[in-house]
């Protein structure tokens, strides 16, 4: 598979003077599952917004399939960190999930099926007719996830998508994501604060330094592609990797310089 994303010397300064991203370079293959971790406030959300074409970088290049990203691409879906605010209170759960499908020339039946499947997958079939403000925090977050799933994107960008759900649901959703990735070959960029999650899900973990952020470490996850909540997490290599990532974050937080 070819190169999907290329980020080179990316830099983003929020006016007047907050340097969120210092100088960031990495590439990502098509079909890869890349996890991004880093200290709070280091610039992960900012990076995702630049990748998704929602924010114009101050400097550097973001390329997708070799062409510079100038705006949101139709092949991409995003799950926002601020899940609550990304749902439209005037639409029901179903309406929110269906909304992005409207311009996807699908038959009515097809569309209904996609929506129903996605809502089912996140375990919200029983509240499909409720409005978002009638749901709990975790349920709202799952609506946002369902919306992205139903959209059937080629690239899925997720910003701490499981922050507000319980351990069991989280495990189920993690497996759902792995499954999507494996069967449909979707490329996924996944931001998380949970180091175990990053290692369990990712094929590669990108550790970012504190703001202004740089790449602090780029660790390939050499676990078998067939993963399982029990056995994979019990592997010694898993523990090794998670310790490695954890230490990198800790150093990033302490602001140590990146080894060249």
């Amino acid at each position: 598979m070819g190169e999907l994303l290329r980020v080179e010397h990316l830099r983003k300064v929020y006016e007047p003077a907050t340097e969120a991203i210092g100088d960031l370079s990495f590439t990502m293959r098509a079909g890869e599952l890349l996890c991004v971790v880093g200290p709070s406030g280091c610039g992960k959300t900012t990076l995702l917004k630049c990748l998704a074409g929602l924010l114009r970088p101050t400097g550097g290049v973001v390329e997708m399939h070799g062409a510079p990203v100038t705006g949101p691409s139709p092949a991409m879906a995003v799950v926002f960190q601020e899940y609550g605010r990304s749902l439209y209170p005037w639409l029901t759960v179903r309406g929110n999930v269906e909304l992005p499908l409207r311009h996807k020339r699908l038959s009515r039946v097809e569309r209904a099926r996609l929506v129903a499947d996605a809502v089912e997958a996140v375990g919200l079939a029983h509240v499909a007719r409720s409005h978002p403000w009638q749901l709990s925090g975790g349920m709202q977050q799952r609506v946002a996830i369902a919306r992205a799933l139903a959209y059937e994107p080629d690239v899925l960008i997720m910003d701490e998508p499981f922050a507000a759900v319980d351990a069991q649901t989280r495990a189920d959703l993690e497996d759902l994501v792995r499954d999507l990735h494996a069967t449909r070959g979707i490329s996924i960029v996944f931001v998380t604060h949970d180091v175990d999650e990053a290692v369990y899900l990712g094929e590669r973990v990108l550790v970012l330094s504190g703001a202004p952020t740089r790449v602090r470490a780029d660790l390939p996850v050499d676990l078998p592609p067939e993963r399982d909540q029990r056995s994979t997490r019990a592997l010694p290599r898993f523990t090794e990797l998670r310790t490695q990532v954890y230490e990198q974050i800790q150093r990033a937080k302490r602001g140590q310089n990146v080894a060249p």
Partner: protein
Amino acid sequence: MRVRKPLLGAAGLLAFLVVWQLLPALGLVDRQYLPYVTDVLGRLVEELRDLAFWRRLGLTMSSWAIGLTIATGAAVVLGTMVGLVPFLRRATHTTVEFLRPIPSVALIPLAVLLFGIQQRAALVIIVYASFWQVFVQMIYGVADVDAVARDTARSFGVTRRERLVYLILPTALPYLMTGVRLAAAVALILAITAEMVIGNPGLGRMIELSRSAGDAVGLYALVVVTGLLGLLVNVFFRFVERRALSWHQSVRGEEVL
């Protein structure tokens, strides 16, 4: 970037002036009824050099300012109260809906009866009309407080007064700003209309005089003055708004791609 906005605005005004000049010039409208812009502006300059004009302008603007201040003050206080207390809101609903649409013009005889042919009569009309603009906005604004934000205040035992100052008024501020801008325009319109109808001295009376004299150029010059006044008022309130609402989406929100 700073200069872009006024430049564009000026371009809009200029385009309008050009269209105006062309209408009579191409004979689409008789110039007796729609005189050339150039003539009107010429007259305007003449007026601007006349002290009497400024005196009348002063009279009109002082009724405007006094009326607007009273109306805004009263509406903010009453609107906040009515908006916050469900009992008051429900009890006053029909009365408000009844009083609000009563044309201020129809109240002029009443005002004259109470206050005579004086500035105070005009003030009553101005206050009455502009009060409702702010009042309604205040009620809506006060009701728009975010649930989580409100619960936060409640759970920290924030006092009533602080809640008002730090939560309710900031939430209602964007609404209030719109309300005051609307009210400022309405107050100006009524200051002038009242002078036209009641006949106390000011810009309105000048308009009525040029109208009855069939002096189209003078009439349009004065209409332009009223328009310009409205513009100045808006520039002023926009400035205040940018100051007061720097945190608000509509002010900071221009960055999204």
